């Protein structure tokens, strides 16, 4: 019986020839990432709960401060200081203020064929480069940090065959929200979403990141693409080499297969308070907004900033709206500066912020108040996700978000 890409990565990490869904294996981890959302708790457990505190291999670890940066109160500052001090003491790669953790990982670390644990649910992004990235809690992270290993229940894979091309003005984010709307918030619970087909081959690494990143919103353990020439070119530009390049075998077994015609996808929005409550964007036009957010590990890269800047150039943000533009990393920010995009946003009246998670996680900059409405390129629209429990979050593409910032109501670009 053949294996899928995900199964091959797990088999290699487990040091066995073959794995099948449902098996539990001990695996060697290639890399572990942790951010300021939980690392202070990990450090406390390291010092207070372990009989023999140790680190298997500091070179495999990356610590990234991205959730509440710069710190907004003394307790946050203390949590981040704990993380910073620990990283320095143990020679762990440490990033602060340079961008959202997953963007930094993709730009600097992730290699095809790797098995990566991240203490953040959107670690599934790394499948865009043919790596198996999955989100874990701080106890799993600590165990991996101490032993270099973990346990993995081999997930089933679900195949998404993408056919054709998205129409102009429709983006991978519309595609992925449409898929989540169809299969539901637990549509691929504990499974791998493997994207393939002719329509997948023409997607850029950014596009693939958009799809993989949101796979957790359908419950998936990860999303993954085959590392093809496009992925290897991205890697080579950054001076990295694959650990291994895997393709799914022709006789690999999938739990289900879907075929998706990209040419019929239209702009969509996920309504509050569930990511799978997805409707055509045109049905929601006219809903008043208080804030718009262009950013996040899902949709804050140069491609989306170009889309937004193209729409808002020469126009103004509505008086009633705060429009937050947050490049996903310093690399993205500098590129946007070079291309004049930051000037365009600033002249429109947008608030351009430092690279970080921002209002996507709802506990730092841009938090919204009672009954306020946000339209966002962030990852989630759960109740109170962006601030007050009565506030509402709509998720749309960079184009829909920017067009809405100009009019002050949900608007199609």
């Amino acid at each position: 019986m053949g294996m899928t890409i995900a199964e091959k990565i797990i088999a290699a990490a487990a040091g066995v020839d073959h794995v099948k869904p449902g098996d539990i294996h001990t695996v060697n981890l290639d890399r572990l990432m942790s951010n300021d959302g939980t690392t202070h708790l990990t450090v406390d457990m390291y010092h207070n709960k372990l009989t023999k505190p140790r680190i298997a291999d500091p070179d495999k670890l990356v610590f990234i401060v991205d959730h509440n940066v710069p710190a907004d109160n003394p307790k946050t500052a203390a949590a981040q200081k704990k993380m910073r001090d620990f990283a320095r003491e143990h020679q762990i790669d440490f990033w602060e203020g340079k961008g959202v953790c997953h963007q930094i990982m993709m730009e600097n670390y992730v290699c095809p064929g790797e098995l990566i644990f991240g203490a953040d649910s959107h670690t599934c992004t790394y499948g865009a480069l043919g790596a198996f990235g999955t989100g874990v809690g701080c106890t799993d992270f600590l165990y991996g940090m101490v032993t270099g290993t973990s346990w993995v229940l081999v997930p089933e894979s679900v195949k998404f065959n993408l056919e054709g091309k998205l129409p102009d003005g429709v983006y991978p984010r519309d595609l992925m929200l449409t898929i989540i709307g169809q299969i539901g918030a637990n549509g691929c619970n504990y499974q791998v979403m493997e994207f393939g087909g002719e329509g997948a081959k023409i997607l850029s690494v950014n596009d693939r990141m958009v799809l993989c990143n949101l796979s957790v919103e359908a419950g998936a353990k990860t999303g993954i693409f085959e590392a093809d020439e496009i992925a290897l070119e991205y890697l080579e530009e950054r001076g990295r080499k694959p650990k291994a390049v895997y393709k799914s075998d022709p006789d690999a077994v999938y739990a289900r297969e879907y075929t998706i015609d990209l040419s019929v996808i239209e702009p969509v929005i996920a309504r509050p308070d569930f990511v799978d409550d997805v409707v055509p964007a045109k049905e929601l036009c006219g809903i008043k907004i208080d804030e718009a957010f262009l950013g996040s590990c899902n949709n804050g890269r140069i491609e989306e900033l170009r889309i937004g800047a193209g729409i808002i150039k020469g126009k103004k943000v509505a008086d009633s709206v705060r429009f937050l533009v947050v490049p996903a990393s310093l690399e993205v920010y500098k590129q946007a500066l070079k291309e004049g995009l930051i000037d365009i946003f600033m002249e429109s009246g947008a608030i351009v912020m430092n690279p970080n998670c921002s209002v996507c996680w709802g506990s730092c900059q841009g938090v919204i108040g009672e009954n306020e409405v946000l339209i966002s390129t962030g990852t989630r629209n759960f109740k109170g996700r962006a601030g007050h429990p009565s506030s509402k979050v709509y998720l749309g593409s960079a184009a829909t978000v920017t067009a809405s910032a100009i009019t002050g109501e949900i608007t199609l670009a």
Partner: protein
Amino acid sequence: MPSGAIFKFHNDLDTDQIIGSQYLLLPDLEEMKIYTFESLDPDFPKKVKAGDYVVGEENFGCGSSREQAPGVLKALGVEAVIAKSFARIFFRNAINIGLPVIVCKELPDEVNTGDVMELSLSDGVVRAKGKEYACTKLPEYMQNILNQGGLIASLNKED
């Protein structure tokens, strides 16, 4: 068999509702736990007693990987979480910290907040309102982690 009160929550209950983002960087679970379920039931931390149960429907604990979510439930003394299904990260985190997570397809439809239930982990059954409900057994590997009090406790034993 220990009995406790049920606190019931909705389908696709996400971890943001269990503990909001703004509390995650507080120093420890003791400071965080007073905000548990703040958006849905702000009095939950005062009402819940050690040995009580949280019951959910499908996809309980979806969303963020924040381990603080099962962490605050355990810190408040919640005995176990019972749901029709769990989101995978919450499920794994709960086992890793030694908080029992029980898959039971029928019970959630037949109970409400305030009902009393009993759980026998070893028999894999839940009793409520005079009825017995079968639960799905954990794979042995995960049951062992739970039995040892969580992943770190099991690591310390190996060490």
